[in-house]
């Protein structure tokens, strides 16, 4: 299922593994934790080969998607579980548990039984339980997916703060691009069991290495066209579009252009691009449009207040596409 996965994660880094469901990201995480064995390949931790080391002694903490809290123990009982097995003294345990519960704002619920906690509270206990033993690596398996959207944003910030403060190297698996972009120092995009791209969030977002990454991370539309090198023009069906001066596309000939919705801007003045409006979705702060250009669908999103005209479905609207911000890939 996983192939040619080669990742190096620096000490203290917050690293995300991003991909659609079924791409193998959870499997990769479970292999790192030691719950599953790779058929080949190695896992190195601090330069040590830990591939055959049991999860018990690997020194890897994990925050499970369903939290996996022990229902018959209190909050404190859950959090001190790992410390006990590391042979910490009672005073040490009390001090560390108190500190970590404070860090996740659960100091007042230390004696609460786990089943009485809300989803957000359970999530924070799960993080505290994994982090309190100060593992070499802290693994997160889509920890926010069971929370409601409002709680998700605030918990995201808390996780980031906690990681900064403790400096624990963290690997975070998610299918939510916003989570990966906002949390990570670097991230890897996984697709069908292979790594498509590794880099900082800005790098990966601005310069996707494949149409898949552009589509998955930037929600980009993929347009098929052809670039004429000499006239520096892009041909889209019957349309011929001049590329901006000073912009040199990396490929010529048949290409796939990944166009992010924010780079498709409705304008007031006349334009050579006048796609048909198929649908308008008002989202409050932003408005998104589904347009049809020369038989190809293309998405546009813009801040509602900057919209100079109110596009209606069935009409055509003049647009500008910022080609120098698009990604060009050779067409296979």
């Amino acid at each position, binding site marked *: 299922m996983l192939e040619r996965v080669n990742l190096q994660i620096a000490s203290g880094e917050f690293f995300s593994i991003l991909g659609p469901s079924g791409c193998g990201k959870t499997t990769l995480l479970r292999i790192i934790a030691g719950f599953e064995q790779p058929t080949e390949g190695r896992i190195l931790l601090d330069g040590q080969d830990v591939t055959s080391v049991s*999860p018990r002694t690997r020194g890897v903490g*994990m925050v*499970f998607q369903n939290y996996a809290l*022990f229902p*018959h123990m209190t909050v404190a009982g859950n959090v001190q579980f790992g410390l006990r097995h590391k042979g910490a003294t009672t005073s040490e345990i009390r001090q560390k548990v108190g500190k970590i519960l404070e860090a996740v704002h659960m100091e007042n619920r230390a004696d609460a039984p786990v089943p009485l906690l809300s989803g957000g509270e359970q999530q924070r206990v799960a993080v505290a*339980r994994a982090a309190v033993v100060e593992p070499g690596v802290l693994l997160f398996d889509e920890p926010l997916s069971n929370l409601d959207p409002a709680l998700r944003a605030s918990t995201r910030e808390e996780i980031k703060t906690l990681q900064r403060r403790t400096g624990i190297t963290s690997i975070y698996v998610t299918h939510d691009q916003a989570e990966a972009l906002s949390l990570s120092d670097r991230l890897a995009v996984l697709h069908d069991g292979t790594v498509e791209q590794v880099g900082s969030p800005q790098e990966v977002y601005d310069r996707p290495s494949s149409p898949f990454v552009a589509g998955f991370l930037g929600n980009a539309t993929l347009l098929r066209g052809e670039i004429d090198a000499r006239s520096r023009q892009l041909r889209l069906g019957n349309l011929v579009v001049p590329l901006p001066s000073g912009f040199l596309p990396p490929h010529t000939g048949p290409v796939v252009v990944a166009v992010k919705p924010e780079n498709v801007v409705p304008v007031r003045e006349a334009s050579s691009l006048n796609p048909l409006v198929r649908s308008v979705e008002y989202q409050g702060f932003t408005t998104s449009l589904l347009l049809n250009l020369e038989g190809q669908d293309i998405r546009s999103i813009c801040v509602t207040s900057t919209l100079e005209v109110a596009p209606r479905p069935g009409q055509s609207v003049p647009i500008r596409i910022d080609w120098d911000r698009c990604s060009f890939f050779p067409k296979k």
Partner: protein
Amino acid sequence: MIRRTRVLEIIALLPLGAFLLGYVLFPIVTGIIASLSVEGKFSLTRYQELFGPGSSSLFESIINSTVVSFITVSLSALLGIFIAFVLLQLSQRTRTIAVLVSVLPLAMPPLVGVIALLFVFGEGGIVPRGIAMLLGLDRPLFYLEGFLAIVAVHTYAFHVYFILFVSTALQKLDASRIEAAESLGASPLNVFRNIVLPHLRPALLGASLLTFMSSMTSFSAPLIFGGDKHFLTTLIYATKLNGDVDLAAAQAALLMVVSATFFAAMMFSRDRGREESVGKGVSRYGVQKLSRAPRKAVVTLLAILLLLELLPPTAILLISFAREGSWTWQLLPGEYTLENYSRLFGDPSVFRPIANSVLMGCLTVLVTCVVGVSSAYAMSHGVLTRVRKVMDMVLSLPFSIPGTVIGLYLIIAFGGPTFMAGGAVLIGTFWIMPLAYVIRTYPIVLRSTCSSLDRIDGSLIEAAEGLGAGALSRLRRIILPLIAPGVISGALLVLILALGEFVSSILLYTPSNRPISVEILSQLRGYNFGSAAAYSVFLLVLVLALTFLSNRLARGDESAEISGFNF
């Protein structure tokens, strides 16, 4: 709309109310009153007699029953937990077969299990005889009798409770919980002690209580193997046979209190142990596969145990083909014939008990369905939902009353003309046994219907209502079709239990109305082993077929867990 629904609920409650008052409460109250009155006046004489001097047989029987029950629970737990864990070491396909074999003892009707063990390990049984012949002795080295035999029969049947309870609990154990503990540094032993065991605790408690209760109220095994030793149930039976019905009523009251206490404790532990739902993700118990050598050892041990479990039914099958009188001193019967079976269906007088049992079984199913379904509906809709838990307890209580007690109290209550029987005497008529069966089994249909009703998504009903369906139409077109599999699987279970019922039948039967179980006993007493075995095989095949059907219908239905029925 609301008013019409109310009316429907009240109508639905009528059969239950009438049944509970007239046929459950009335006999119990009459029985207790009988134990409390001497010549029409209130008196505690019988209870003083119970605990006073000269009542050594009661004390003896309490001690005997308790000791047997404790040993049964310990052995059953040992055996059942072991099997449940080893089952997880098997591959999927072998496990399916092994599970089927391991729960077989529970499918054996009470008396059949006892007789099967008698044939294999009893004084003249195949195994003791075989060992004696092998060693050249003229007397068997050992055989099961008395205490040991009763404990063996009980363990044989009741250890299955532990298998079922523990297996179910293990399936519900979230694997990520174990992984979390592992990654926090817990050793396998630690994981077992801190995570697995606490998770199993409610299941172990439930299985222990059920086993203890079943063992205390067991009748068949003490009757056949008890000899001159008395147990609570056989003491009541003996007292009644001696003609002192009122003293028997007092003894029965004692047994009923013991049994009801354990039943209430069991219900309580079940509610406490209900697992809070876990989130999504991997949720199977990732039992670590043992390494090769120990795994081979435990699996071999399991195979031996399962073969041992198969011995008794195999022996019954073999002996059912034996020519009568051909099995006296030999290791195995000398001559084989189909005669026992051809008589079963050819000879009207031999076929009679089968016809009786089937007729009474069907009648029982009919009544339990009417009472069970209508009251389940009433309980899950409207006013009664508020007192649901209490109602659940009250309605399930007859389930906890030992068959011996029900039989005896029915004799007392319906031994004279009553309003409930239209002024007639029910004892000695055809109707008394189906009544006993209904009392003993209706909680099953009630339970299975309730759990089916609970699982109906409330939005379905609302959707139907929004589409204009009235209360009656919702009931007929939405609710009934959805609960049908649950009801039918419950009804099949009732049929199984009614067909094999022995404990109250032995007190209530009339010569013309003998059920299969009573006939098996009388054939056994007449040393017609072949006939007794043929009846048993017939019953066993019927029960297995019905169990199979019921399981097919109730796939994934928790109410289908085989309910405790008293041996």
